[in-house]
């Protein structure tokens, strides 16, 4: 069987307009903005505490409307990656 995807309650979001705009959008849809992702400008790490931490499918809810917001360029729900130490 192909390995299943495990969806988390973390998202990567690309928003132009800086940290303030990202904070507003996060608050609007119920997310916490954990800040810029490393050195990637305009990319932010969002977390939603009301979405189940791990799931075999992507849960839908009010939080899903963020991808339809015109100020949001791109959204990616984070999947757990299988990584092994060598």
């Amino acid at each position, binding site marked *: 069987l*192909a*390995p299943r995807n495990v969806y*988390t309650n*973390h998202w*990567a979001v690309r928003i132009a307009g800086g940290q303030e705009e990202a904070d507003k959008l996060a608050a609007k849809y119920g997310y916490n903005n*954990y800040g810029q*992702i*490393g*050195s*990637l400008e305009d*990319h932010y*790490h969002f977390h939603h505490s009301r979405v189940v931490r*791990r799931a075999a499918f992507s849960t839908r809810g009010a939080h899903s409307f963020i991808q339809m917001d015109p100020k949001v360029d791109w959204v*990616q729900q*984070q*999947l*757990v*990656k*299988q*990584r*092994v*130490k*060598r």
Partner: protein
Amino acid sequence: YIKSDTRSPDPNFVHFNDPKWSNMWYIHCTDKNNRCRSEMNILAAWQRGYTGKNVVVTILDDGIERNHPDLAQNYDQLASYDVNGNDHDPTPRYDSSNENKHGTRCAGEVAAVANNSHCIVGIAYNARIGGIRMLDGDVTDVVEAKSLGVRPDYIDIYSASWGPDDDGKTVDGPGPLAKQAFEMGIKKGRKGLGSIFVWASGNGGRQGDHCSCDGYTNSIYTISISSTTENGNKPWYLEVCSSTLATTYSSGEFYDRKIVTTDLRQRCTDGHTGTSVSAPMVAGVIALTLEANPLVSWRDIQHLLVKTSRPVHLKANDWKTNAAGHRVSHLYGFGLVDAEGMVVEAKKWRSVPTQHTCTRIRPASRNQSLNSTITSTGCTEQAEQHVSYVEHVVVKVLVVHPRRGDLEVSLISPSGTRSQLLAKRLFDNSNEGFRNWEFMTVQCWGERAEGQWILEIIDSPSSLRNPEVLGKLKEWTLVLYGTSGHPYQSHGTQHSRSRMLEIPTPSRDPNGPEPPPEVLKHQEEEEEEYSGRRGSSDNTTQTPSNLCVECGDQGCDGPDPDHCLNCIHYSLGSLKTGRTCVSHCPLGFYDNLEARRCRRCHKGCERCVGRTPTECRSCRRGLYFNPLNTTCSETCPAGYFADDTQRKCLRCHENCMKCLRDSDRCTACNDGYSLAGMTCVPECANGTFFHLEEMKCSPCHTSCSTCTGPGKEECIQCARDHLQQEWRCVQTCAPGYYSTEDAGYHQGMCHKCEENCLSCDGPGTTCVKCKDSYNLVSRMCIVNATCNNADEVFCEMVKSNRLCEKKLFRQFCCRTCLMTG
């Protein structure tokens, strides 16, 4: 701080007092009777004076034990972060299985402190080492991207010894964010020189895995490293592929020696194994290289590895010489890394030309077979894409297939070099095929790009599938990365100062006496060849065809300025070379008002107000204007750096004693400051630490004499009359600990007694008092019940199979395991 450019190995190299130094068989040979391998030439690099000073390395893993006695001195908080816990402390999570030991083991190989009577010596034992805790939790694309983008201007080298499952059936790699992080790192990291990412190749040799199915080792931005055993044999765990660049020693079979390094809970281990060993080793070697030349780029490092790595005694049946003359193998890349070779080459290295990318797409026809050809011109028609000399070659394929593991993919270069991009994988039953998966090969490095590139796909149907259902190649793309010019040829007669370190040449003292006239005349004749901006849009340019306009009251005997009998403004030239009249003197000359002549500036000056060396106002190409004494010289004085754009010596930041390329890119600091990466921060006295956010020295906790933060868990060394217990300093050891005075380590320590013991005399089974509910038996603590065996036959089997080491079996077979020893 380099003392001299001409170093030779010091035959009187001092022995280290680190207890496991003699076990570091892959670095040195201390005893002629001991078999050992020194072909990585690490000792020789040290003997040339390179130990990783001022280089910052970080380990992306499960954390780093920052207070480990053999790491604390080199630990760098700025090179660390806890992505899993979202804080700045990458200390591993401790548990009974010690599962989070990996990062600490890798870190020790790179930068364990030398000569401190603890454990080992790291390859770059004066480098700064940090850790990014990111594997001890859910690893997502965000987690990876954050980890790869921690302080890219501060951290030089990122080492990773992990990857997708090595089960022989996974095809996985970095997500879109991690890919962007790689690209951002090589473009902007190290202030434009590019971050260096070192990656351990896969460990799935026994499962028939192939490292081309790992997108991290397959990336052109990472340096993929494999391993060989002490005897040059292929280790059982090794994966084979065309993206491997180089190799180091590591573990092998049970009779081969393993690698010694720092372990969790402040211990030392001689059981470090696998390709995990090799990436940190190369990170350490690259740290030595960066000390030799801090201005090499991420691509320069790869070129240096290709150039200096050698096959030596590494055994493989596919060693071949590619068309550029490099020996290469799918097992070992270009061979064993050579640390001395790296530092020697780095010292004289000129940066390679800009990378170009040439892409050709080949869609497949309806009846396309699994073989296909692309004839490439190397994109000669577009200068910014032209690739003549290849570095990496990426092949992106779109293949549909009922059983992916049956496929073999090879690429044959125009010169005939065959790279096996994918081998058959026994356990890969996937029917997903390859959806634009990128295979990469370094085996054609240095070859010419023009010509026919052949993609060969071999389908060997296994018994696990219907042989009549065939696969189909839908499309493939050939991406050539490389340079339009030869990467190692000279860039012309002028020095390229931006990436090459200065070679000291004897230069005349600018404050010394004027040379004799015959020497001056010789210099004047030599200066005839200067090809400065004479004739450009500069306002000193004379206008052509003056037609007696510049001539004085005596008129002229011809139309040109050199036909004037005298001049209105200035005369240029001599009787020997001929005179001409000009309105302003050109570059290299100054206006002599008294004689109304253009006189030559001192050699090296482009603009000047007199003949002497100290009357320069700007300099010729290759020299820099020193504002202190208004001379032109090849080097700048202390406290200044050479700015290529302005051709001037500009002042470094006030805290820097020396800097390179930028005023705030320090390489040495003034008194009272110490170097943190490339920044000079105030030295904090004992009892204080440098507070990053407040940018000042703040006091440690009262129990610490030195520390990394204000808390009582952030001590590096304890205050007087305190003992070190775990990561705290205490006045007396807590119950369950015993104290020792460590002879080589100048403070007392509290060590943990055996499990469930409240008081003991020392290490091992020396308990004298147990916790409640435990009995003291043979100086060990066992649970309050009669010490019995569950079943005698079962317990005999446990004993004969040496399973008494496991706690569970000791509890079932107490009498057999504990009472009978």
